[in-house]
């Protein structure tokens, strides 16, 4: 089994999930509560990675990260390195690619919270932030957890974007899915099978755990 690829994939998926939690939650809160008329544009942009072929997304991400792009130049001036074909570049691409898988469940969960409960909390003198922690989060965590698991699983399973942005550098950008593809190309079916089976078992276990946790929430 390709432990290097597995470790890299888990690291990438975990970091992507953490970043999406931090960035996605405020964005989802805004989407769930804003009454701005142009909100649909933001919603459409967030959902784009759902429908775009990974190659299209990967292509534009690569363009955006390139050494001649503002983002690429900014990154280079800070770190002295290039963004494409690096772990950091891959991480950035994963965050964009998995954005809808986090933000949409988040927003749905937040929108399902009865707004009067939030107002009741405010009227009881509790601040906006503490209301979010004491009322909104406890009532929406099942949906938020779903979003986190989906982003994690989606990142573990991404392939096209990785190839476009990350390439296939062992220990840097070669994820499990790419590693399996390599083994199959090399007609090394046994190795491909063990890694694939590991991925299958892992994904099934994570999803089962999530659904089990959610079930328990509903029967308080």
């Amino acid at each position: 089994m390709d432990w290097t690829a597995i470790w890299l994939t888990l690291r990438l998926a975990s970091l992507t999930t953490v970043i999406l939690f931090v960035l996605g939650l405020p964005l989802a809160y805004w989407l769930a509560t804003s009454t701005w008329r142009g909100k649909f544009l933001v919603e459409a942009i967030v959902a784009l990675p759902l429908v775009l072929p990974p190659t299209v997304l990967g292509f534009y991400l690569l363009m955006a990260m390139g050494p001649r792009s503002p983002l690429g130049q900014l990154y280079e001036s800070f770190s002295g390195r290039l963004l494409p074909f690096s772990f950091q570049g891959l991480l950035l691409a994963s965050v964009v690619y998995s954005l809808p898988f986090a933000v949409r469940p988040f927003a749905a969960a937040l929108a399902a919270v009865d707004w009067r409960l939030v107002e009741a909390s405010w009227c009881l003198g509790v601040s906006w932030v503490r209301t979010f922690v004491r009322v909104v989060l406890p009532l929406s965590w099942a949906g938020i957890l779903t979003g986190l698991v989906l982003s994690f699983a989606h990142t573990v399973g991404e392939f096209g974007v990785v190839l476009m942005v990350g390439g296939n550098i062992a220990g840097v950008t070669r994820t499990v899915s790419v590693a399996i593809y390599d083994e199959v190309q090399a007609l090394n079916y046994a190795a491909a099978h063990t890694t694939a089976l590991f991925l299958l078992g892992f994904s099934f276990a994570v999803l089962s755990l999530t659904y089990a946790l959610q079930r328990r929430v509903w029967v308080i």
Partner: protein
Amino acid sequence: MSAQLIATFEKRFPGGPTIRADFSQPADVFSITVLFGPSGSGKTTILRCLAGLERPEEGSIHFGETIWFDAACGTCLPPQRRGIGYLFQEYALFPHLSVASNIAYGLSGLSRAERQRRVGEILDLVQLTGLEERYPKHLSGGQQQRVALGRALAPRPRLLLLDEPLSALDATMRERLRQDLRRLLRTLGTPTLLVTHDRVEALALGDHVVVLDEGRVCQSGSVHEVFSQPSDAAVARIVGVDTVEPGKVLHVEDGLATVAVGSVQLVALAQDAGTGDVYACIRAEDVILEKGVATPSSPRNRLTGRIRALSREGPMIRLSLECGFPLTALVTKQACDELELQEGEQVTALIKAPAIHLVPRG
């Protein structure tokens, strides 16, 4: 003069109605002001503006010395800093918290021991001791209402805002809690503003009434004043004076006005109606019914008519009469049975002159 809550503001909804509030109420002594009006009249919007949940476009809200809102200088205190207790129509209890935690929710400023003591006090006050570990969905409607009230009262608010506090309950429960609520609020002595569309609730709970219709204040004053002397026909209809009929004052003599209503003439107190077009307002419970030939008695108005319809209303029967104009009477079921009142029957309706309230028309 004691400190006052003075609300003079305008809230506009784009493409919707404009709500204008203009009233005041004592801010440091107990009194219940009822915002009364049909649904859609803007009662809840006014309450939400007072709570700081909506921001009016114009005007100001002063609570004693404190400015809660002033459009001119852009001040708008958030709900957290107004020191209010708000009871939501459907209570808005936190479903993930127990009764005790719901009540303790607004007490985070207190120490643990103080908080527990206060929760105990409140549980006693709203008679929920023993249920502190329950979750809201395992409580009856009446218990939920008391938890919500207790939660609002726990942080000792300076002003209580109650949005239809009894409307989510069934009729029997409503009747019982109505009396309890007034007693409880009086014990606490917190100035209270209460929204309702229920006339009985307004009469039973309020000291003062602000009548709202289509987003504006039509009349405000003491409960008795507003209900017995509606300032115009719209208020009369809203406060539920049952008969509101157009008429014309023919002449005034010795403080008594003779009014032509439909095909008959009524005698009413002249008040300040002057002469000319008026609405004659008669409450159904002020109409006395007699059968057979009328013998001389004190009521000035005796009208012969026929019963057009009867309908049951709890222990009472509401009768629609035609006696030169449509008149509604409310009598007990017992009286109705004794007199054998039936549809089509001929009766005499007696109305005392002071029971006919004349409202200038125009």
